[in-house]
C-alpha cells in the first residue's frame, strides 16, 4: 500500500515524509483493518515529524484523525463496509487506576494513533476495534476527519470549563476559544457547539443547559452571554 512514512531523516528536498510502498498491515485479534478515506492533519503531526515529541518508532506512519471503511475484522458493532473514525487515543490497558475510574484519557499504558502505532497517512490502517467510532450517516468523511482531534478535544475542554454544571460566560470569554487559542486550533473549529445564547440539544448522555443569572463580579466586560453544555 502507499503510505507517508516518517523515519527521522529528512529527504533531499527537506521533506519529513517519504511517500512509498509498504506492506499492508495484517489483521490482528481485537483490531479492524480500515481502508482510509480521509485523514486530518493535526499540528501534533508536525510536533512528531519535527522532533518536538521523541521518536518512538524507526518508521512511523503519522495521522490520528482517520475516517475509514471497515474492510476486514468487522464486528456486530462495526460491520464490514461501515464507516468509522479513529482519534489520537488508539487504545488503553483498561486495567490501570485511571481506566478503572473513568479516566482512560490518562491511562498508564496508552496507545496513540499515528505515534506509538501507525496512523492514517496511508491507504490502510490497522486499529483497535474498540477505539473506533461509528460515523453517523450524513457526516461526510472529509469534513469529519478534522473534528476527530481538535473537535473532540475542544468539546472536552468546554465540558471541563463548565465542570460545575452549565456555565454562563461572556462572549469574549468563551472557554474553548481560550483553549483553542492556546492550542492553535484554527478559528473555523472554535466553539461550534456553544454559540452565544444557543440552547443546544441533548446528547446520548443528556446534555443539559441551564441559565444562571449573570454574576457581574465573575464576568468582566459586557459581552454577550452563552451557555456551555455540560454532560453528566
Amino acid at each position, binding site marked *: 500500500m*502507499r503510505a*507517508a512514512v516518517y523515519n527521522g531523516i529528512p529527504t533531499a528536498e527537506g*521533506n*519529513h*515524509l517519504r*511517500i512509498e510502498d509498504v506492506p499492508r498491515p495484517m489483521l490482528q485479534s481485537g483490531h479492524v483493518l480500515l481502508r482510509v*478515506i*480521509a*485523514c*486530518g*492533519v493535526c*499540528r501534533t503531526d*508536525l*510536533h512528531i*515529524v519535527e522532533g*518536538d515529541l521523541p521518536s518512538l518508532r524507526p518508521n512511523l506512519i503519522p*495521522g490520528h484523525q482517520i475516517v475509514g471503511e471497515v474492510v476486514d475484522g468487522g464486528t456486530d458493532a462495526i460491520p464490514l463496509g461501515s464507516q468509522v*473514525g479513529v*482519534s*489520537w*487515543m488508539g487504545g488503553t490497558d483498561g486495567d490501570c487506576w485511571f481506566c478503572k475510574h473513568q*479516566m*482512560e*484519557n490518562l491511562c498508564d499504558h496508552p496507545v496513540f494513533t499515528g505515534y506509538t502505532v501507525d496512523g492514517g*497517512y496511508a*491507504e490502510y490502517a490497522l486499529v483497535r476495534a474498540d477505539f473506533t*467510532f461509528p*460515523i*453517523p450517516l450524513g*457526516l461526510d468523511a*472529509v469534513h469529519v*476527519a*478534522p*473534528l476527530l482531534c481538535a*473537535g473532540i478535544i475542544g*468539546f*472536552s*475542554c*468546554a465540558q*471541563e*470549563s463548565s*465542570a460545575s454544571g452549565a456555565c454562563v460566560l461572556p462572549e469574549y470569554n468563551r*472557554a*474553548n476559544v*481560550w483553549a483553542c*487559542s*492556546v*492550542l492553535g486550533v*484554527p478559528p*473555523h473549529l472554535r466553539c*461550534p*457547539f456553544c454559540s452565544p445564547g444557543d440552547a*443546544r*440539544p441533548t446528547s*446520548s*448522555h443528556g446534555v443539559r443547559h441551564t441559565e444562571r443569572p449573570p454574576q457581574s*463580579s*465573575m464576568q*468582566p*466586560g459586557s459581552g454577550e452571554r452563552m451557555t456551555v453544555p455540560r454532560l453528566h
Partner: protein
Amino acid sequence: MVAINAIHLDQMPGFDYDKLLWGERQIRSVANMTREDAGDFLKLAYDLKIQPRVTTFTLEDANKALLAVKDETENGSAVIVL
C-alpha cells in the same frame, strides 16, 4: 475556568491578569480524550451539522499538507484524501 489541551506545549501564553484572571479564575489542563467524549461530540456534530472548512491534499502531497499546517497558509483544516 480555562481548560487547556495540548499534546505538546512548551510554554503557555501570558494571561492578562486584570482582564482575564481577576476574580478567582481557574486554569486546568486537559489531556487526551475518552471514547465517551468522542461519541458525545460526534453526535453533537451531527445534530448541529458542524462542518469545518477543509483543504484537501492527496497522499502524495502529504508533505505539502504538513507545511500548510505549519505555515497556516490554508483557511481551514488540511485533510489528506485517499
